[in-house]
């Protein structure tokens, strides 16, 4: 059937329910949150309609600047680690047989779908003193005594890379599968080793994909809220943790909302960058 523009009002019928749901339960809540970010907080966790910028002014503190700086730094580190691990992995994966690919994809999806609670619990067990990997090192005679590896920055980073790695692979997968295999074949025929062909042919051909993926993983890592709590110390808390903390435990909804609006702006700015990077990629 040819696609055609809707002619009668009833042609819009199928759109009615999805549009209503998305407007009522996504657009309106979003607008509510923005409105609340300007509200005035009352004692006891309530807030009254107002228009004040006090909630936003609180950003201008050293504490907040530190948290924001740490969140961005952590997300960038996670994104870089994931890209470095995932690009060669995904490239090799797409060159394997379909059966092997499916097994790995199922495993990656299973890890990706895991709750942050579960990932946090699993890694805190692995890093614990009584049941952790240090016990294996003790058995092997490398260490003299088992010890806890958390809370620490390394634990937070490991947990977040674990969470974001499958996501990175799945974002890279479509672009790498479509990569023309004759590119590397040509390089090989001309005498390049597989490793050299990978770095001189595959990586440059994927430059835009890698940039876009880096930004997507960065946003993904920015949303992590439980792992910094479960695996790190309070100085490892990110903006997402702080928002949850203000909303639930400090009952300061207006401030939480203001921080969330700020986080949206940062994220949207980055999505715009991704789209721009994608456009350039198509033009090239």
């Amino acid at each position: 059937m040819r696609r055609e523009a809707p002619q009668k009002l009833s042609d819009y019928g199928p759109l009615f329910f999805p549009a209503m749901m998305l407007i009522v339960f996504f657009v309106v809540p979003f607008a509510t949150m923005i409105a609340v970010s300007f509200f005035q907080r009352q004692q006891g966790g309530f807030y009254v309609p107002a228009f004040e910028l006090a909630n936003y002014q609180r950003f201008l503190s050293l504490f907040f600047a530190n948290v924001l700086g740490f969140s961005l730094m952590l997300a960038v580190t996670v994104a870089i680690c994931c890209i470095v691990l995932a690009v060669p992995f995904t490239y090799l994966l797409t060159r394997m047989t379909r059966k092997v690919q499916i097994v790995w994809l199922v495993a990656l999806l299973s890890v990706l779908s895991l709750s942050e609670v579960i990932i946090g619990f699993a890694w805190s067990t692995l890093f614990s003193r009584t049941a952790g990997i240090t016990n294996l090192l003790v058995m092997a005679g490398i260490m003299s005594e088992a010890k806890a590896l958390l809370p620490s920055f390394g634990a937070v980073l490991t947990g977040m890379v674990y969470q974001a790695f499958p996501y990175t692979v799945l974002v890279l997968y479509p672009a790498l599968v479509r990569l023309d295999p004759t590119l590397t074949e040509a390089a090989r025929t001309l005498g390049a080793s597989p490793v050299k062909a990978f770095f001189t042919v595959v990586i440059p051909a994927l430059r835009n994909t890698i940039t876009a993926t880096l930004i997507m993983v960065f946003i993904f890592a920015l949303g992590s809220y439980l792992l910094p709590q479960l695996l790190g110390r309070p100085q490892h808390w990110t903006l997402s943790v702080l928002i949850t903390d203000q909303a639930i435990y400090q009952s300061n909804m207006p401030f939480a909302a203001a921080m969330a609006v700020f986080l949206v702006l940062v994220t949207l700015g980055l999505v715009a960058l991704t789209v721009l990077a994608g456009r350039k990629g198509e033009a090239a």
Partner: protein
Amino acid sequence: MTGALSKVYFFLIGLFLAAPMIVVAGVSVNAKQTLAFPPKGFSLSWYGEIFLNPEWRNALFASLTLAILSAALAVAIALPLAWFLWRRIAPWANIFQLLGIAPFTLPPVITALGLLTFWATTGFYGQPWTAVVSHAIFFVTLPLVTLSLGFTAIDRSLVEAAATMGADDRTIFRTVVLPLILPYIVSGYAFAFVLSLNEYIVAYMTVGFTMETLPIKIFNALRYGYTPTMASVTILFVATAAVIFSLVARFGDLPKLLGAMSSDDT
């Protein structure tokens, strides 16, 4: 040489992905209530605990109910939208596609906070059904993406043939489109279901004080120390996800769903 190198690399990545689960699986079969690895003794009683202990059982049922209903609602929102976008030329309607993808792209805490302020303002805060709606909106992206992919795979001439022979939109949808799109509905549902089962922050912010889903239960239990049931629940969740995605791979075309070209080309 490079073949061996890539094997080693895959082994290390596999080890990284599996290591926490191996330790948790070991911990989950400890005979006593201790956090020890390698496990001391062997017992499957912590798996029984999930179903026998009323607190864990209630959390399991709450999570299952939430996942079944919210995934269904997510598909109910995504299907007509994807169908309309495929059937009609209405560029402005793409805004709804964008709205459907936004909740999943933004950091989850934002969607969670938006819904929290919304339910609090409207006075429904804490009611169990609000979690179903919240999860459906949060995960509508998944069926929307799989269904959009599914529709583009349908040969339009099939539908045209049906239209030429006098079938109206409704009949075409039921007899031609639905059978072709069914695998994508199922995989979209499966993705939303598994993710809803595992979701913490949206559920916590909307109904965290009145209802305990399994992830909320694990987190609350973690704050009071350790019980081995957490480990057995974790393994149960990993196994569930692996089984569901294997089924999707078995009956659908997983590489294609994840964006690769169709199996004939590769």
